[in-house]
């Protein structure tokens, strides 16, 4: 894998992936206030059960504690953050400043995203910055890290260390383009990919097959996105209301087919079956578990998915 020749970012996630082990990452949404305890409480359930934790950046365009600040709380708690950065809220100056600051204080992973449009959020009239896009952000972080240069070509005194992540949505249109877009993000410098939540397995298999065929899975680590369904309502909402989400009827029917108090467990069962398949799937190197506002279930899910114990590096 070509990522092996890349700069060593000192990231735990990078070590797990480079050692050839199946990665398992989690996700945590910062609070809508200054409550540090809330972050610590959620982090408690993730500690020891995941290799790194994505810290969302004003997710769904709703204001929250900044992702770098919540990332630092995680570091203090002994977890490794995967600092998410969206292009919606910052221009290139602010982005580079936050990359330097994050790296200086120990952040070693970054996920580069365009970000949901502000129209969805709690400040729908905000100016969307979108100075650069996610592909350009990936390239910018890579240039900062590998060449020690700011976007404008000026030298950085002590460049940042980052393991660079990007997102892929195999389910958005046009399907044929998704592998090309993945290729562009890899070319820009992505070391790892976390995908959109997967429910449509046949489509995902096809995506990975194409990525394998193009040799892309030799160049990047792919973490398959999994979000267990908590209820039939959630499944319906994801199917109809969340752009770029593909929830086949089989999933909804399967959830509907069990007794009401067993729906959540059925959601976890589906997720664990998926994870079993991902472990064997050529071109998939791990799972990104997005148990949104369900962090306390992660220990159980990790147990049932047989991904424990997580590797530890001295």
């Amino acid at each position, binding site marked *: 894998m070509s990522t092996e020749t890349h700069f060593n970012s000192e990231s735990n996630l990078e070590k797990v992936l480079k050692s050839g082990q199946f990665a398992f990452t989690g996700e945590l949404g910062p609070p809508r206030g200054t409550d540090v305890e809330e972050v610590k409480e959620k982090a408690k359930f993730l500690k020891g059960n995941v290799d790194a934790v994505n810290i969302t950046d004003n997710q769904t365009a709703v204001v929250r504690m900044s992702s770098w600040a919540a990332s630092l709380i995680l570091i203090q708690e002994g977890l490794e953050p995967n600092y998410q950065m969206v292009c*919606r809220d910052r221009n290139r100056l602010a982005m580079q400043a936050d990359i330097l600051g994050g790296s200086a204080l120990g952040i070693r992973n970054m996920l580069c995203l365009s970000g*949901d449009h502000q129209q969805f959020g709690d400040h729908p009239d905000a100016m969307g910055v979108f100075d650069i*896009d*996610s592909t350009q952000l990936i*390239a910018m972080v890579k240039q900062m890290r590998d060449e020690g240069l700011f976007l404008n070509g000026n030298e950085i005194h002590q460049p940042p260390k980052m393991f660079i992540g990007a997102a892929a949505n195999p389910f958005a249109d*046009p399907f044929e383009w998704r592998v090309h*877009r993945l290729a562009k993000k890899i070319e820009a410098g992505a070391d790892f990919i976390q995908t959109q939540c997967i429910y449509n397995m046949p489509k995902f298999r096809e995506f990975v097959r194409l990525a394998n065929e193009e040799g892309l899975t030799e160049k990047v680590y792919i973490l398959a996105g999994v979000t267990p369904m908590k209820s039939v309502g959630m499944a319906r909402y994801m199917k109809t209301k969340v*752009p*770029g989400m593909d929830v086949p009827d089989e999933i909804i029917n399967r959830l509907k087919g069990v007794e009401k108090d067993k729906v959540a467990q059925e959601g976890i069962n589906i997720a664990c079956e998926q994870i079993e398949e991902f472990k064997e799937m050529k071109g998939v190197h791990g799972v990104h578990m997005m148990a949104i506002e369900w962090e306390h279930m992660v220990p159980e899910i990790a147990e049932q998915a047989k991904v424990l114990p997580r590797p530890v590096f001295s």
Partner: protein
Amino acid sequence: MIVAQRKPFAEIKEMLQGYNKVLNVGCGTCVSVCLTGGEKEVAVLNTELEMARRLDDDPIDIQGHTIERQCDREYLAELDSIIEEGKFDALMSMACGVGIQFLAERYPLIPTFPAVDTSGLAVNQTVGWYEERCRSCSQCVLGFTGGICPITMCAKRLLNGPCGGTNKGSCEISNDQPCAWFRIWERLSGQGRLDSIKKINTTRGWKDQAPRNLMQPGYKKPEKMVK
């Protein structure tokens, strides 16, 4: 063409509060074509204002005059005599933002108010429907995007789209809004030119972040501006 939308009546009325002799100036070009600020719309707005102010027991003397182009000194000059004789205490303009400013600049002692919100460079899709197509970014990318503008039509101004939110050809912001990048992909694949967007489009320098001037080669600013 430039399109504009008439401001809400309450806002217009509020702006003219305290002014009793007003000239409403229409424009016969773009805003006329998009049915917002031509002769007819000037007359309609004036009637509405007269009625509302009469109801308020605060009558307004509002006159209308529509010139060919408010963004052109030659046509604006037509107004000199009308404005001089009329002794208006305020001007209102139904032209685009450019026209409104040119009018205000010509008569700097008279307060000038906008009656419209200028809202883009658009095409006329069908009568009454205008779709924004260009943000005049000073750096046209249409050459590699198959003639579809992502700066204007992609809600995130992406240069390497489509993003993960594109939904059966629609943009993530609404099912009614086509995804610009989906269309770009479609058009380029039809032309066998997908290579054009397989390359990474690198970071661009925005050229519209400070006031712009266009000076054609061989021309220069006059020593003194003539009215």
